[in-house]
């Protein structure tokens, strides 16, 4: 990448949203509305520049923005458009600073596009990276917060012009609680902006290169489909992941606890996995994969379900009996699997005290893929 990065083109948006959906590991919300919004901005002449984490000086300030609310509301009452932008401006005002760039909290799903849209309005570049390298359901589950980013001032904005600034918030868990309640009062779609971070801090804590990675994955899927190659094999090659199961879904069980959709999908193996059975635990995203009772991949590593034929990522809400899927395990970035990070995003944090995180090895890809 050149020091000035690259401009996002309209033709990048389909692959970008496809790659973002894949990195959403079953959750993160559908990027369709966000893709259309970005397309409209590009068509009306806005420039969206993606820059490398090495581009800006240490003391430059970076804003992190994302949508917060309920995905099902987002398909009916979608954005005025400037929610995240207004929240970001409110943080600048409260902190008395100016941002130099924006970054995504999560590259997985719809929030991959929110900073891109806010940056288009602000005329700011977007950093090539994010705070997860995937999707997770709560505000505190980013590398930025895990490694001690300031929690205030933060701000949340709705489409009506309401902006709420959180001047003092004692930790990231309180920020999640306040922001969630405010978002519901605002009608369950809102934009959240977090406190400014220095570029020096972001360079140390961001998962690097994930915007480009999502683009690369999306292009790979589309090209493999066009050339009628095996999509799954190509995705494994470009992500460095491994194929952990191939099977047909024989049961999906769901329940709602604590505001989150939890559940399990049961798969019966096909091809080289014939005779084996797998189980995937779900809470918005895919959390743990067991094959024949043995845990094989677990959070924070990525568990990605792809349609066996088309390579289309399958979100957890549309999982159902009879689908034939490939289950890929992608190694999460090292910043997400330190002891500190695992306290927030490891299996125990998602209610599996019996599991100790065992990372999947990136090298397995070459032998298993």
């Amino acid at each position: 990448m050149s020091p000035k990065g690259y401009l996002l083109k309209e033709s990048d948006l389909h692959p970008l949203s496809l790659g973002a959906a894949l990195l959403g590991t079953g959750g993160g919300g559908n990027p369709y509305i966000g893709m259309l919004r970005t397309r409209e901005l590009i068509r009306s002449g806005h420039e969206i520049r993606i820059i490398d984490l090495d581009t800006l000086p240490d003391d430059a300030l970076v804003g992190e923005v994302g949508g917060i609310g309920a995905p099902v509301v987002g398909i009916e009452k979608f954005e005025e458009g400037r929610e995240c932008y207004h929240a970001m401006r409110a943080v600048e005002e409260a902190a008395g600073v100016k941002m130099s760039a924006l970054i995504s909290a999560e590259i997985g799903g719809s929030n991959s596009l929110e900073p891109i849209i806010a940056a288009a309005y602000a005329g700011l570049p977007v950093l090539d990276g994010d705070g997860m390298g995937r999707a997770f359901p709560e505000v505190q589950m980013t590398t930025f917060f895990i490694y001690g980013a300031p929690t205030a001032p933060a701000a949340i904005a709705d489409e009506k012009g309401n902006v709420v600034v959180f001047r003092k918030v004692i930790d990231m868990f309180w920020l999640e609680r306040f922001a969630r309640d405010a978002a519901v009062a605002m009608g369950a779609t809102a934009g959240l902006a977090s406190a400014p971070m220095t570029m020096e801090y972001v360079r140390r804590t961001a998962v690097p290169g994930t915007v480009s990675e999502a683009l690369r994955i999306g292009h790979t899927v589309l090209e493999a489909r066009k050339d009628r190659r095996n999509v799954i094999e190509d995705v494994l090659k470009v992500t460095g992941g491994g194929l952990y199961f191939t099977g047909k879904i024989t049961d999906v069980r769901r329940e709602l606890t604590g505001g989150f959709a939890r559940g399990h999908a049961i798969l019966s193996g096909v091809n080289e996995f014939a005779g084996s059975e797998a189980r995937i635990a779900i809470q918005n995203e895919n959390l743990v994969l067991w094959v024949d009772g043995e845990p094989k991949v677990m959070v924070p590593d990525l568990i990605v379900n792809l349609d066996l034929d088309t390579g289309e990522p399958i979100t957890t809400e549309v999982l159902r009996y009879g689908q034939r899927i490939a289950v890929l395990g992608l190694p999460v970035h090292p910043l997400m699997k330190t002891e500190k990070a695992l306290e927030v995003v490891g299996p125990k944090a998602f209610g599996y005290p019996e599991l100790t995180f065992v990372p999947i090895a990136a090298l397995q890809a070459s032998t298993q893929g």
Partner: protein
Amino acid sequence: MIRIGIDVGGTNTDAVVMDGARVLAGVKAATTADVMSGVVNALADVLKASGKAAADIDVVMIGTTHFTNAVVQRRDLAKTAAVRLGLPATASLPPMVDWPEDLREAIGNLSYLAHGGNEFDGRKISPLDEAELIGIAEDIKAKGVNTIAITSVFSPVSDECEKQAAAIFEKTIPGVHITLSSEIGRIGLLERENAAIMNACLRDLSKDVIEAFRNAIASAGIKGKFFLTQNDGTLMEAAFAEKFPVLTFASGPTNSMRGAAFLSGVKDAIVVDIGGTTSDVGSLHKGFPRQATVAVEVGGVRTNFRMPDVFSIGLGGGSHVVETDKGIKVGPTSVGYRIITEALIFGGKTLTTSDVVVAAGKYDLGDRAKVAHLSPALIAAAEARIAAMLEDCVERSRLSPDPLPVIVVGGGSILVDKPIAGLDLIKPDHFAVANAVGAAIAQVSGEVDRVYALAEMGRDAALADAKAQAIEAAVNAGAARDSIEIVDVEDVPLAYLPGNATRVRVKAVGELHVA
């Protein structure tokens, strides 16, 4: 009750006469370019075959692809203004933003955003602004457009804004034709709005087509009422269909699946409808097709219609059978309706799937001597390929591990003579005209889809309220009240929302009320 069911497809117009639950006669006639003379011909043929007089017919039900084709071919569409209520929300994406440009241009590319709309819990996003709406109405009037589609945010929760806006438009533009999105679709703003706009722009065509159907029926001497079937396999009165032509989209596959359920007497099954070129596979639940859960495109436009979840493969009675270096290839190309001249058994030169089953001695059709030269190895390989294709699509359509039976219908059903995927096989009488039977037996439905806060009213009260609303909707659509059953209840808790917000969908279905 004596009724006639008609299915107007792209190739064939099928018709049946039924006396109660008995099929008296079924015929296939060619669909004509003007559609109407094909209907007239089919009516004459089927009356003759059934031995019934036109005066005996109580009611006629028609399933048609005419409106779908008009959108796909961008013809006969009225200039339409799209008005959305919800500002400041949703300003980022104007109406028709994801439409193909030629279709948007074909209906005048005229859209407006105005204040109004509701939150998920019924609160107002912003008050309706009468002056703003009068201004929009005057602009629409000045542009010479008199068809409007109104869509308000969360109108499935509250349709008040849409109704108030409609009243304002009607006052300003006398004689204006209005479609409200709340009358058509469900949650999912862009998709519901798309459906409302497509419905509005079909308004003039629907007047003509319904009139032509009415004339065809009258010219056959039939005095009974007539209805059109909609995509969920239920009926709408002609006058209602004229207002909501968009609801006829995808009624073809629905009718054949409903017909299959009726002819076989089985209500939970996988249905395989084998035509000349493709096979449509779907699953039946309580006698109705399972609906698709993802957005379905019509003419390049995303919708969230109540469409059957049908999986199509390129396998039919006229599919080409070709030997390649990788083995036998079957379909997706086909001789289609030219099978009666091009297949080997009819003296043609093309090897088709029908030739294979005749050569294998599985079915008697055409001249068997003309396929006597085919090698047993070729026949066996082609049969194995056909079986594998059917097994694959049946497996895909299974929604539960329960061993459901497989019902095979359609003109291409001769390809099947043994169980698919180890499941029981049912090939009912009159299988070739199952789609017309599906139209003839269609019932009447009402549906509700909205979000309830269960913390306030409790789950039982919410479900009771939704059921009562669905029953009223069915009665309004023409169902006999005492025959109404609730056929589907789905409550989905919504993640991240407090107060146990739950999306409830209920469908009620009843027999047609014939006065």
